[in-house]
């Protein structure tokens, strides 16, 4: 049902690694380490700045793909693979976009499931690679029925 979106890509969206958002995120994963939140520790570190936790890029806006309306509820996360050039620095700008890499369906004991493979990419302002997050989203039979209605 999402085959026609394979290859679709959103426009780049400018994001910022906001200090407050990093702190809130670090707290939510129980990792309030000084390298994330203490300015002095950040300054004295090899990064000369605080950094963000590896999975922080989850919070960015990756733009939208025209016509792709994923259900707001019921999606299951199957797989997640991050590749980083380096940790993200607090207050830096990151340009993000999303691409639909693949969609396929498999029949299992709970009916037919859809697998949507997305790449979320982050670049610096010069278009240099910062990170990529490959995500496999599983769309269950129940959810597939709901969205086809």
């Amino acid at each position, binding site marked *: 049902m999402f085959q026609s979106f394979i290859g679709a890509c959103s426009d780049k969206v400018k994001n910022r690694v906001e200090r407050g*958002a990093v702190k809130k995120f670090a707290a939510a994963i129980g990792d309030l380490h000084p390298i994330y939140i203490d300015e002095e520790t950040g300054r004295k570190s*090899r990064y000369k700045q605080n950094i963000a936790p590896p999975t922080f890029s989850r919070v960015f806006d990756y733009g939208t793909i025209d016509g792709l309306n994923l259900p707001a509820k019921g999606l299951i*996360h199957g797989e997640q693979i991050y590749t980083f050039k380096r940790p993200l620095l607090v207050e830096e700008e990151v340009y993000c976009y999303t691409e639909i890499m693949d969609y396929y369906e498999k029949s299992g004991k709970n009916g037919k499931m859809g697998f949507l493979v997305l790449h979320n990419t982050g670049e610096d302002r010069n278009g240099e690679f910062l990170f990529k997050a490959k995500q496999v989203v599983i769309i269950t039979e129940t959810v597939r029925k709901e969205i086809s209605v």
Partner: protein
Amino acid sequence: MMLLQQLEVGETLADIQLEPVSRLDLIKYAGASGDYNPIHTIDEEAKATGLPGVIAHGMWTMGNLSKLFTSYYEEGFIETFSIRFKGMVFLHDVIRIQATLAEKSSQALRFQVRAVNQRGEDVIAGEVMYALYEL
């Protein structure tokens, strides 16, 4: 503090046992991540999709797992972090996060990582490639 590079293949980082998963943990993660999928916070919505109750965000567990490496930020960084979500995490589950060194070179350390529940079942499992800086 120990250097990650002093670890030998087969050795593990100190496990961390998380506090039992609470609804507030999931509400906080929803707010911090922007993932408001209601199956993580509202029982009725979770049940409507066939779940027995709310489940933790897989990314919450993955985020927690990364803290095993936070103290070593001067030595290197997580270059790849690949995870399969293998089992659901329910309220009150007690999750333990683990990392075992599988392979080492002068440039990188490959860890097998996982989070297990109180029944010893993997809820997420995968690998961390930890790139080392030149000292």
